[in-house]
């Protein structure tokens, strides 16, 4: 593979607190996301993993009555600084959701290219290469190359999710955020996507939220554990470190309790 022209970016989360309706959902987070690595965010439901993830591309602020304090630095530039452009940030930081979200009225090809044409009409030509490349990276090309014009909904669940990854990659982001991408998939599709994650980290920075600790252990280089002191309290970052260390010798008792299945 030729080296990509875009460089994987590094993210620094600095003293971040995110609110819904004025209530903090996750508080006082300081976290460094290294480039070309997979960072996993783990923790019980309600610990603010997804909210933290959604702060990394500004999607959090598209929710009504949501707000945040603190900073998220994308290659040292605060994405929430005045003058920074949310649209540009979302192009640089791609995202894959829990449920595959194919645009139901578009074909497979148009779905993959959706981030490039963004609602405008797109002619034929060089774009087909982009689609092929993105689908190849997502490990889906062989399976769909003959059905590019088929409606996206005709793909299986696992294929749809990989198509959504291809769609995110086609925009050439520097970071890829994944919000429990395998939550609704069968074990085989899950393994396929985990392989894919290990492959794309060569070129991208990957952050993955997961409920599944085995999954974190399998794919992540770094693991961050979040939890809240009680239901309704904001989530906080408890511990972060190399995945192996977190799982073998956690420094905090709560981390150990969670990993050994005592909580969550």
């Amino acid at each position, binding site marked *: 593979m030729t080296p990509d022209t875009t460089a994987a970016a590094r993210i620094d989360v600095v003293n971040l607190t995110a609110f819904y309706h004025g209530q903090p959902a996750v508080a006082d987070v300081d976290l460094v996301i290294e480039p070309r690595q997979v960072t996993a965010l783990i923790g019980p439901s309600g610990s603010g993993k997804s909210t933290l993830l959604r702060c990394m591309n500004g999607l959090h602020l598209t929710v009504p009555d949501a707000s945040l304090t603190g900073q998220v630095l994308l290659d040292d530039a605060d994405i929430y600084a005045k003058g920074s452009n949310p649209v540009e940030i979302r192009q640089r930081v791609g995202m894959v959701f829990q449920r595959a979200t194919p645009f139901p009225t578009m074909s497979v090809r148009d779905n993959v290219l959706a981030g490039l044409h963004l609602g405008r009409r797109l002619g034929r030509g060089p774009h087909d*290469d982009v689609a092929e490349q993105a689908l190849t990276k997502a490990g889906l090309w062989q399976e769909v190359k003959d059905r590019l014009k088929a409606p996206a909904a005709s793909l299986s669940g696992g294929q749809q999710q990989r198509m959504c990854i291809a769609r995110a990659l086609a925009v050439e982001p520097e970071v890829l955020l994944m919000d429990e991408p395998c939550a609704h998939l069968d074990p085989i599709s899950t393994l396929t996507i985990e392989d894919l994650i290990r492959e794309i980290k060569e070129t991208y920075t990957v952050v993955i939220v997961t409920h599944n600790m085995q999954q974190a252990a399998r794919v992540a280089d770094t693991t961050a554990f979040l939890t809240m002191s009680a239901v309704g309290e904001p989530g906080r970052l408890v511990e972060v470190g190399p995945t192996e260390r977190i799982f073998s010798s956690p420094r905090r008792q709560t981390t150990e309790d969670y990993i050994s299945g005592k909580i969550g």
Partner: protein
Amino acid sequence: MAAPASTSASAARRGLPRRLSVNTAMTVVLCLVTAGVVALLLWILGYVAGQGLKYLGPMFLTHTPPGDPSQAGGGFANGIVGSLVIVGIATGLSVPVGIAAAVHMVEYRGRLARACGFLTDVLIGLPSIVTGAFVYALWVAHFGFSGLAGAVALGLIMLPLVIRATAEVLRLVPVELREASLALGVSRARTVMSIVLPTARSGIVTGVMLAVARAMGETAPLLLTALGNDLFLETNPTRRMSTLSLQIFSNAITGFATAQARAWAGTLTLVVIVLVLSVGARLISRRGIVRSAR
């Protein structure tokens, strides 16, 4: 291999200023269109208020129009009373029947209920003048024009509105509530009467108020049924009667400035009644939602 990809992706990024200005432009357009619609509403209400206030007063509310429409003075007392009588009877006819039909639709299901649901929607789309012609054929052709015929026509117009509004709130009443009551050995009828309907009360009241507001403003079907009576105050619904809407219509199209002045005052009166009913209905339904959320 990566070259074409990076060109299109960075092309999308280079086009960013243009895309952002398209976004801003469309946002402004949508905002302006909405502002335009609101301005239109304010224009209509402002114009009605401006024209209506010129003549609206105690005299207008308590007197009947002069025998000669070209003369100044007088008012729509007979129309106001007629509207209250006719819409009152129409409400008395349509509300019990409408609630009962909605109860059947939601509580008993079945083929008749499904048919009733679809036909209610169809009835809502029935032009009111057609309903007027129906009541003419059913009633007026045999017994002559009367306030009662007008009330039947308005009742038929209100009926599907009441059914739909009631059915919508009945569906929101939790099944658990019904089952809890039935499990206590309470009969189905009692469950509906003393548990389901009271729970849905504020929603039903909202629906009825909106239907009353609609009936208050109806004119066309009344031309074919109540006919109107500009001469004197009539309180007997078996004779032809005037309503506020009929008097607005007949005075508006006379061509006499004096009659039009009365019609504007009548229009303002009607609009105030209808807006109070509509806004009141909204407030009640909002309060109802808050209460059930607690």
